[in-house]
């Protein structure tokens, strides 16, 4: 495990007390990177996966969302996701794909309202993968759940099965697609946890945006790495999985709900 331990432990040490420390660290790191590119640190939170090397079960990528820092009028995570993945509002908003959305949760008994982003929860036991007839819905060894658009037949059974409403059906011929996120008319799509960025050793776009211009509510990392920030916080703080009762063991955890 130690051989695969990513370089995030430095960042984790700096950000263990909250988002401000993390942002300060990233800012300083960015400056160092600009001034001394040869050092090549910081912008990459963890090691990139080299080409030709398959995803490894030694990692379990996950997210932690601190809902107490997620504000009602902030949508930077959603905007960043749309931009990164080439999503845009279709002619009919009802048919528009949403990889991530902001949810308002109101407790009718206490009157307490809070806000949180919901995306594919990248479950350990994903219902979408279990029901997919062709295996187009699949889980990488490192826990990222994806759709293989080459063999998705567009049956939408995964959309019926997902408890998180994390999948969208591509109902339009898409334009301006990103090479790393090919979108297919008649295929199902959803959050990829920005696998293309993760493979480069970077945070998903939503997490980067949240920590850059949002409330600093999101943390991404390796749940199997005990030194990662996410692992430490999951180990020491009260975190929750949405619909944990269903037993799918989501890789996205929440604080404050």
């Amino acid at each position, binding site marked *: 495990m130690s051989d695969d331990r990513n370089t995030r432990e430095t960042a984790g040490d700096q950000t263990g007390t909250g988002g401000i420390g993390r942002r300060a660290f990233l800012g300083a790191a960015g400056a160092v990177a600009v001034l001394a590119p040869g050092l090549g640190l910081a912008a990459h939170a963890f090691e990139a996966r080299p080409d030709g090397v398959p995803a490894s079960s030694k990692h379990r990528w996950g997210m932690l969302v601190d809902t107490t820092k997620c504000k009602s009028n902030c949508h930077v995570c959603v905007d960043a996701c749309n931009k990164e993945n080439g999503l845009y509002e279709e*002619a009919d908003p*009802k*048919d528009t794909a949403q990889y991530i959305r902001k949810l308002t*949760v*109101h407790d009718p008994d206490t009157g307490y309202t809070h806000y949180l982003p919901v995306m594919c929860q990248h479950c350990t036991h994903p219902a979408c*993968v*279990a029901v997919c*007839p062709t295996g187009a819905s699949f889980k990488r060894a490192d826990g990222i759940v994806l759709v293989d658009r080459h063999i998705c037949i567009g*049956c939408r059974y995964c959309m019926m099965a997902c408890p998180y409403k994390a999948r969208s059906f591509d109902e339009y011929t898409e334009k301006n697609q990103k090479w790393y996120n090919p979108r297919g008319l008649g295929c199902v799509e959803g959050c990829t946890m920005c696998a293309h960025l993760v493979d480069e050793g970077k945070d998903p776009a939503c997490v980067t945006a949240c920590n850059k211009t949002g409330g600093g509510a999101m943390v991404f990392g390796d749940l199997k790495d005990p030194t990662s920030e996410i692992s430490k916080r999951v180990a020491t703080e009260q975190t929750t999985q949405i619909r944990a009762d269903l037993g799918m063991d989501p890789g996205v955890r929440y604080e404050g709900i």
Partner: protein
Amino acid sequence: MKKIEYRELPAWTPGWWALMIGLLVVMAIGLAGALYMETEGHHVTGMTNQIVWGIPHVFAVFMIVAASGALNVASIGSVFGRDAYKPLGRVSGLLAISLLAGGLCVLVLDLGKPDRLIVAMTHFNITSIFAWNVYLYTGFFVVVGLYLWTMMDWTKKRFYKPAATLAFLWRLILTTGTGSIFGFLVARDAYSSAVMAPLFISMSFVFGLAIFNLILLAVYGGSGRPVSPDVIHRKARLLALFMAADLYFVVVQHITAIYWPSRDPVERFILLDGGIYTWLFWGVQVFLGAVLPMALIYRCKQVGRGLLRLVSSLAVVGGFAQVYVIVIGGQAWPLELFPGQQISSSFADGRIHSYVPSAPEIALGLGGIALVLFLVTLVSTALPFFPQALGNAEAETPAVGEAVGQAAE
């Protein structure tokens, strides 16, 4: 038992041409609707990211469920040894295969990528009930095909009983698989339940027999072949019995869910304040589709053709409503990400989802029905599927003659 004489349907008559051309036109319109949906994308349909399965699935599920039920008539004759049903075995098998073909065509043409059917045939995810169903559906064609062979080829008579038993078991497993498509959806409160499998089996009994009756009445009325009143009465009583079984499982389905506090909201939605779904459930599915026809059948000492046609039609309408409430109504209720909390989002979380079927979707579904009727007519024109007479025709032909006359009028 006397020898049963089977005859092909008379072809090339004006009525035959009118029927076949009419069915071909409906099929062509349905195909055009499917092509339109495929090339434009599903945004031209009423389906959304909330209601992901629409009216084509209602048609498809209805036909697939009815397919296995249509085979019951043959099974009652062969597996359970009721001689009165044996002459109808061939029609029963033919209708079963045709209904399955119609349902699957609609299902496939509603895929986002119908051109990738070959992918569905070559890539199997063993944990998917959908993938299991691909085997079950394909196997159904083979098994019922063999069953028909043993019925039509007397040199294969020794295989008749084993083939009949295999077909009966296969149809039970097939409908279990279809029901489990919904039963295995643990995320959706309207579905996730083991009762979906037996419920679908009971539904298949009703749908299949009702469609069988309507086909039988149409063919025998149209061609003037005699049918014993006893056969008519027997079919009606059997249909009423199946309706009671369906109703029983519907009660179990909802009572079980109501007992589960987290499912109260969705049950309240379907049963009390779900608008169109509540109306369809009580008004069409329960009253028109079960209570009324059962009352009509049981209060009648001798059910005639007219009443059998009426109750079978009601069963079809009620059954369609039942599938609509299950498929669409179940999706209209939003997913419960935070049970007990009020949620909202730009993705319609926490809201009742609306659905209005579009013309191409409806055309596709009707095209599937037309395909079923086309196949039944075409095959029974080419091969002897329908008995020349049903029941004690000699003794009862006069009465039947009158009935045929009335039907013709």
